[in-house]
């Protein structure tokens, strides 16, 4: 089975970046996630595919702590983070983006990235204005460059186009020193050109930064990840290389059969 491939592939690699054991999440009577087991090596880039309502976003929410899982445990670089507060996980190097952009509409791009850097460094309570020479401000420059927002640094977030807001979502995840990032449908609503931009941005990330990307568009997913997990009805039902997944009849059934495979 594909899971065995994953396991053997990762044998002997010390602590995994992410390790999920039997993670489940209930919303009342609804089981949004159940029995998720996942091992992701440091620097690995994984795509998660699945139909609408499969539980992909819920999976991210349990990893970042937006919701706590109702069962199972989560380890991040060997440390059990199952019950940690969200900000504690972020300070350990975990980052995420949101499927629906969660931004500070009244701040500028530069201020937003500055805050994202501040959130994982010291002087968070500083009552002084950030100096232009501040290293955090310098990082805001380079990150806005990395996500192709050089020209918009001093624009208010609320005035950005949808595509630019999606890019800023990524910028917020890159600030500080991320070790692992969860991208929740970063390509949602993007034009073909913006998609190409996105693929370029992701492929230009430093090699030590691993990520999971949720992506409906198989073509995008396959170009930015080396390994794919399929979710359905709150469960991970298969994992494999992009070719294995593409040729898996069950996957085709789900995608072609409108999500009721």
């Amino acid at each position, binding site marked *: 089975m594909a899971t065995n491939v994953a396991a053997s592939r990762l044998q002997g690699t010390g602590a995994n970046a992410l390790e999920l054991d039997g993670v489940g999440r209930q919303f009342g009577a609804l089981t949004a996630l159940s029995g998720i087991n996942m091992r992701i090596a440091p620097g690995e880039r994984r795509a998660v595919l699945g139909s609408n309502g499969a539980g992909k976003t819920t999976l991210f929410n349990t990893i970042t702590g937006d919701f706590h899982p109702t069962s199972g445990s989560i380890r991040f670089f060997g440390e059990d983070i199952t019950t940690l507060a969200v900000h504690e996980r972020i300070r350990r190097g975990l980052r995420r983006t949101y499927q629906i952009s*969660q931004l*500070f*509409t009244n701040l500028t791009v530069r*201020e937003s990235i500055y*805050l*994202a850097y501040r959130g*994982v460094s010291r002087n968070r309570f*500083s009552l002084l*204005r*950030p100096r232009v020479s501040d290293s955090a401000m310098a990082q805001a420059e380079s990150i806005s460059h990395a996500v192709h927002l050089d020209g918009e640094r001093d624009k208010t977030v609320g005035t950005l186009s949808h595509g630019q807001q999606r890019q800023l979502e990524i910028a917020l995840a890159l600030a500080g020193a991320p070790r692992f990032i969860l991208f929740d449908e970063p390509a949602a609503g993007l034009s073909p050109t913006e998609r190409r931009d996105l693929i370029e941005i992701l492929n230009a990330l430093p090699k030590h930064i691993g990520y999971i990307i949720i992506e409906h568009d198989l073509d995008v997913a396959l170009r930015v990840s080396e390994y794919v997990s399929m979710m359905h009805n709150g469960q991970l039902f298969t994992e494999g290389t992009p070719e294995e997944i593409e040729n898996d009849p069950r996957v085709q059934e789900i995608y072609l059969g409108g999500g009721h495979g």
Partner: protein
Amino acid sequence: MSDLPLSPAQKPAGARSWIETLGLAHILLGLFLLIYPAMASDFFLTQIGGYSLVLGMISLSLMLLAGYGGMVSLAQITVAGAAGYVVAIFGVNNSGVHGFGWPWWVFVPLAIAIASLVSALIGWIAVRTEGIYTIMITLAVATACFYFTQQNYALFNGFPGYNGLRAPEVFGVYWRDPVPFYYLCLAMATLAYAAVLYGARSTFGLTLQAIRDNPRRMRAIGFNVTAHKVFAWWLAGLIAGAAGVLLVWFNGRISPGTIAVGPAINILVIAIIGGLRHPIGPFLGAVVVTLMQTFAIDIIGAERFNTLIGLVFLLIVFISPDGILGLWERFRPQAGREDWRTFRTATKQVGNKGRKT
């Protein structure tokens, strides 16, 4: 009357003189306030000038929480009252209870420190809630404190509270005399106002506004949202506490009536009439309400006074949800209506050097 009319588009980039940094409106306003004692009678100096500045400071502490943090508090007068009671208990009073007679330079910092801790404590309780529930819970705290001080004689001397509270004499000046008291209030209010204006663009100021805009995202970039909100309450407590000290020197007394529900709501009314978008708003509101309180009573009688305040409040909220500040924005020449962002860019221009437009 404020720095609002500075449009970013008109500002040249690059170096600026101190006049530009400070803003012409600020300089004119400052000059007027400095020479005001030369024009005003003692009554106008103290009952209108000094009192407006004190009420403005208490409302400013609310503006900080509500405008930047999205947390509307009805307990700001309670925080000011905490400082007032410390002054009464550790300073000198005529009520024959406590009155340790400590020097002012000990009990004033102590009063402000205790008030800020009380504020942080109220904040710590209130930050679990949002929106209307924050108002409700702070109202509950304010009401509970009112009844507690009224019934507790051991510490708060119950219903009568404390009277005979005198401002200190320092450098041979009695600081409750009209002119010194006015300048004392002006100095404290200016300090608080400038601190809030500067702090709005500080790292913490940005943090607070970002939390107001999107707390979930703030957590997801590493911020402990609760801790930052409580810190904002602590800062607001410093301002309200300092104002509380001035308030008891102004009144010469403190009793549960000072921190009752009526005065608590009054602070909110002042802030909303003035406007919550800029720290000048609370002071504008305080002047309007103080003038109305002083003169409307003569014209329409004391019983109808609250009706009048209520009507003015409704009128302003109806015409302009942003209070007098919003009216200013709307009716000033050529600018038309501006959104929050343009407005903030304008205020930022005042203090932020080297930022290109």
